[in-house]
């Protein structure tokens, strides 16, 4: 779907992206992660030709982007950025309709699409006539996502789209977006410097540093087998806890249930991080597991959790 071959970009002699090669498959959500200045945003912007590369090649659907006009290319790639960049003089409706308008859609089709998108991103139809200044930060960001999705582009580029939000709103939008991605199956390249966001959203993390890719794999791959000290240091000790939050009790082989009825209980779909938290709160190292019928179907010890997560897929 998206393929970068030996992409290199320099500004005033300083190499910002250095010989990066990367393939993102159809429907995949790839996170470009790294400290600021690592070249992740530059890499992203090379895909829709917001900037032009010095060497290498970018292919979308097997066609080199260099052969397409930048404007035409961008109309077929969704793009959402941290500052949103809603057009302040246009209504929400007109903002979302931007690309369909550029593509010359008919009015009825545009109106239907806007209504559909508002629902998709969780906004009431009454928001359509508002001006961006009347929206909260979270609402504006939802409109930004809707605008990026407007012409149903197969590819979506996102540059810290939730970075400017408060933690509560950010997490809610992140979860909604993960759900949206599962439903729509778009190919997404998502830039962030937030480790938590990367681990929460990404099935695939591309960690960058100084313009190069340091490691590319699932969060579990990066955790179990960091390619170098930088990877380990970048994620830090909390990485394990964050990985735990990606897995559920059901992912582990269950052991014996604890004796007695007053043992703390968790469910099959409880994530492992919450399970661990429960043990700490109840000062126990052994919890009972309930199935969907509220019957005890096994137990889990502290040891099961911390060693088991290493083997989960």
């Amino acid at each position, binding site marked *: 779907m998206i393929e970068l071959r030996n992409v290199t970009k320099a500004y005033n002699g300083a190499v910002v992206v250095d010989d990066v090669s990367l393939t993102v498959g159809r429907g995949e959500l790839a996170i470009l992660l790294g400290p600021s200045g690592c070249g992740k945003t530059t890499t992203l912007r090379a895909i829709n030709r917001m900037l032009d590369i010095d060497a290498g090649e970018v292919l979308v659907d097997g066609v080199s982007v260099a052969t397409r006009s930048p*404007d035409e290319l961008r109309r077929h790639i969704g*793009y959402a*950025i941290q*500052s949103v*960049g809603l057009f302040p003089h246009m209504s929400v409706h007109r903002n979302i309709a931007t690309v369909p308008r*550029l593509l010359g859609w008919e009015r009825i089709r545009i109106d239907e699409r806007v209504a559909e998108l508002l629902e998709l991103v969780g906004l009431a139809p009454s928001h359509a006539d508002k001006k961006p200044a009347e929206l909260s930060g979270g609402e504006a960001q939802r409109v930004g996502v809707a605008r990026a999705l407007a012409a149903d582009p197969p590819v979506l580029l996102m540059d810290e789209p939730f970075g400017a939000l408060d933690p509560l709103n950010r997490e809610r939008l992140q979860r909604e977006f993960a759900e949206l991605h599962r439903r729509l199956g778009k190919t997404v390249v998502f830039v962030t410097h937030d480790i938590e966001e990367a681990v929460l959203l990404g099935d695939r993390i591309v960690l960058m540093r100084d313009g190069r890719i340091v490691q590319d794999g699932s969060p579990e791959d990066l955790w179990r087998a960091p390619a170098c000290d930088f990877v380990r240091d970048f994620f830090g000790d909390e990485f394990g806890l964050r990985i735990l939050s990606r897995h559920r009790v059901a992912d582990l082989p269950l052991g014996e249930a604890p004796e007695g009825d007053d043992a703390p209980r968790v469910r099959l779909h409880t994530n492992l991080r919450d399970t661990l938290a429960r043990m700490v709160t109840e000062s126990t190292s052994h919890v009972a597991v309930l199935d969907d019928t509220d019957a005890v179907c096994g137990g889990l010890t502290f040891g099961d959790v911390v060693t088991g997560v290493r083997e989960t897929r």
Partner: protein
Amino acid sequence: MSAYEPGIRRSWPAVAGLTLALAFWVLYEPGVSAVLGMLFPDADTLVYERSPMSRFAAEHLALVMQAGAISVAIGVAAGLLVVSPLGRPFREVISRIAAFGQAVPSVAIMALAVPALGYGSRPVLLALVIFSVLPVMLNVVAGLDGVPADVVEAGKGMGMSRSQRLRQLEIPLAMPVIMTGIRTMLVILISAATLGAVVGAGGFGVPIMSGIGSFNNAVIVHGAVPAILLALIVDQAL
């Protein structure tokens, strides 16, 4: 620096009242005569008698509108040029030359243009345009500069071409600032056009200067009031 927005603008009742007052002053000479007679009981002549005020109003408006149209055309074009990649090298030097132009009194340009353009409205038009292009151009530039970068960036990211970004995003967002420039331009034009009488371009300056020449305060006021009313109308209406 020092962005200062003076209070409330655009009061339509005020505009309507001022327009009525101007119409009265320009069209109904007996009434004006009566008013001036009350103010200046000793004056031997109360109004400028050689031509009707409507003629000066027409001349004045013609000067302002012609110069304004030329200035808007040049000022907007120059502003767009100066912010375009092609004209960017000239941006600072053009603003400096334009600012320098403001240090030259407008009458001086009228006077100096007489040998080349003759007496009448042409030297005045030249001077008016030179003086009023700057606020238009500066406000076009300031307005376009004030457009948030992320908005333009987002437009670019969605595949708007340069001209689409300019027409759909940058110009509409810059419009309030550009309109301020056009209002300033018109106020400057109305003021400078009163000086055009010096080189025979007519306008409200003719009765004012005639009154000054004959030490007749009533005639001065007869010419000064409509010029002030016109400037106030423009200032309130735009």
